[in-house]
């Protein structure tokens, strides 16, 4: 197999990897700060894609509003809207469960997932609807020397990487980030220093949800927008988080990218295993490094 083919496939793997990274980053942030296993993350990703689609194609037909929300506006607006929904979910529902076992948070968010999926599959074809709003400026292909690569996919890779590393920098290297981490480490003590921990938690959940929404908007022009698009992805993303180490920000980003690459290369060498290779690695990691590659043993 030529180097050219491997490079091409690696780039495609990276393309999948950035979505894994962005979603697992959101999950890791939420788990790290709230101790909640957010099963609704895939549904929020799906919701992001659907809000972009509805904003572009259905506002007039459904609501009689003759406005079309384009891709660039969606890129800003949708994460805000999904983040706002995150605020509601956290304030109204999750807040009541913090004292209880993890499993309650998981069940609640799983329920939210089922509701959102059911709602959208009532109105949209389950096979998927394409998002037609991809901007003209990103619609071509770029000659990378070893392959022609769709411009939009390149754009999605760059934006996702930027968002991932900015988030990491923010949490690990800024004052606000250190306060967040302090809140995780010792909630009572942090509160005693006069920091508003409940507000920090709400904003963190909203931020994680917004990241999922952003990933949804970025994914909409590449994949078909389908009610099950999040469900197909979320299990893999959980595996990514487990491999990276629950709660580890950098772990989530790096393992997301790496596993995208590994999956991409598996598609060339042994395609039928492409959907299982990540789980195989997860089992290995759990056997030999139960806290994950980047996690700390407690």
């Amino acid at each position, binding site marked *: 197999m030529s180097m050219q*083919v491997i490079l*091409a*496939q690696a780039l*495609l*793997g990276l*393309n*999948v990897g950035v979505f894994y990274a962005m979603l697992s980053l959101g999950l890791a942030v939420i788990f790290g700060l709230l101790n909640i296993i957010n099963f609704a993350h895939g549904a929020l990703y799906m919701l992001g894609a659907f809000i972009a689609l509805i904003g572009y194609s259905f506002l007039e037909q459904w609501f009689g509003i003759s406005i079309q929300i384009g891709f660039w506006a969606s890129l800003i607006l949708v994460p805000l809207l999904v983040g706002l929904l995150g605020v509601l979910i956290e304030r109204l529902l999750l807040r009541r469960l913090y004292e209880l076992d993890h499993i309650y948070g998981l069940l609640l968010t799983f329920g939210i997932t089922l509701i959102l999926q*059911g709602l959208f*599959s009532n109105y*949209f*074809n*389950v*096979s*998927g*609807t*394409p998002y*037609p709003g991809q901007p003209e400026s990103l619609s071509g*292909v770029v000659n990378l020397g070893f*392959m*022609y690569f*769709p411009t*939009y*996919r390149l754009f999605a890779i760059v934006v996702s990487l930027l968002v991932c590393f900015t988030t990491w920098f923010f949490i690990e290297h800024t004052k606000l980030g250190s306060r967040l981490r302090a809140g995780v480490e010792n909630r009572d003590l942090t509160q005693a220093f006069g920091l508003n921990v409940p507000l920090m938690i709400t904003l963190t959940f909203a931020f994680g949800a917004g990241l999922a929404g952003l990933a949804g908007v970025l994914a909409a022009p*590449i*994949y*078909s927008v*389908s009610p*099950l*698009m999040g469900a*197909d*992805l979320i299990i893999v993303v959980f595996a990514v988080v487990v491999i990276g180490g629950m709660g580890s920000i950098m772990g989530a980003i790096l393992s997301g990218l790496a596993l995208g690459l590994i999956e*991409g290369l598996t*598609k*060339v060498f042994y*395609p*039928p295993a*492409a*959907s*299982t290779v990540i789980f195989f690695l997860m089992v290995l990691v759990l056997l030999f490094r139960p806290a994950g590659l980047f996690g700390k043993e407690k």
Partner: protein
Amino acid sequence: MFKHWKHGLVGVVAATTFTLPLVSTAADLSDNKVKIGVLSDMSGVYKSLEGPGAVIAAKMAVEDFGGSVLDKPIEVISADHQNKPDIAASTAREWIDSKEVDMITGLDNSSVGLAVQGLAKEKKTITMNTGAGSTALTEEQCSPYGIHYVYDTHALPVGTATAMVNNGGKKWFFITADYAFGHSLRDNTGAIVESMGGKVVGNVNAPLSTNDFSSYLLQAQSSGADVIGLANAGQDTVNAIKQANQFRIVQSGQKLAGMLVFITDVHSMGLDIAQGLQFTTAFVWNQNDEAKAWSERFNERQGAMPSMVQAGVYSAVSNYLKAIKAAGTDDTEAVRAKLGEMTLDDMFVKGGKIAPNGSMIHDMYLVEVKKPADSQSEWDLLKVISKIPADKAYISMADTKCSLVN
């Protein structure tokens, strides 16, 4: 007290059962009604092409029949099989054993179809499968009471593969959904391609519900094939076609052949992406005036034009009811025999025949997705290119592996 009463009742029922054949009358219906069960995927990947639309189609068939047969009411019930054969089989068992269901239709998804048909064979109940593809339903695992109504993995590739090879598409590369249906579709298509002098130059087995097909598409591109055969369905097909568009596969000269595409998929993809795609279907909603009139009525209730599967449910239920009327009973053997004698003519099928192996033998159509400029309305999406005669589309009784025939 209640117990005694129940024993008494059993006695009466037993007595009538034994004496019934002697005094049997024309209107002989079990439980004084005909009950039809629509068992379909109501929430998963096949929802849009069968699902709740199939229930609407079945209800329309009952209403158009007058709501009763042999002066007894007809009832339609439905359930979600969730694409799980075990759930499908236990629902079907409950329906037959305690809910007096006389016929089960729908059954999209081959593993569900095979499980329920196997159970219904044991229970002597008619199944009219409108949604599954596997030819095993009428071949290796055929049943005297199992009817396969709309399409199968033999009929689908005949038209598409033949037409494409004839137009110069000699070298094929397959992207195959990695489960029974995908493999069967690929093997049948490959056999047709090779029998016509073409060649299969490569294949990848992609896991079901693959998100990103670009890696497989690039492998197909570098294989130098003329045609990329998509031996998959639903979301997988839509994703693959959409991503082929991103990588300019069709623009750079390769053709895409969808092996199982539904009009609902084309509608949701949009003509910009799907234009030029050729595939085989059993039904086009505007194929004739009768079909058009029916489909428009369906559209009013469903909010979408019918897929071939949903139209097939209407036709299957109508003809089942006609057979009961003609046979004067809902007895399984008698109705199945009557269905075998009838020639099926309605908005869905012209001159259809149900063969002894259960395969409903009928014409199929090779269609092409219209260019955006040629489409007159929202659902004006397909152009019929040619008709595939029934005897070419389906496995003949001379060649069938069904043990009931040979």
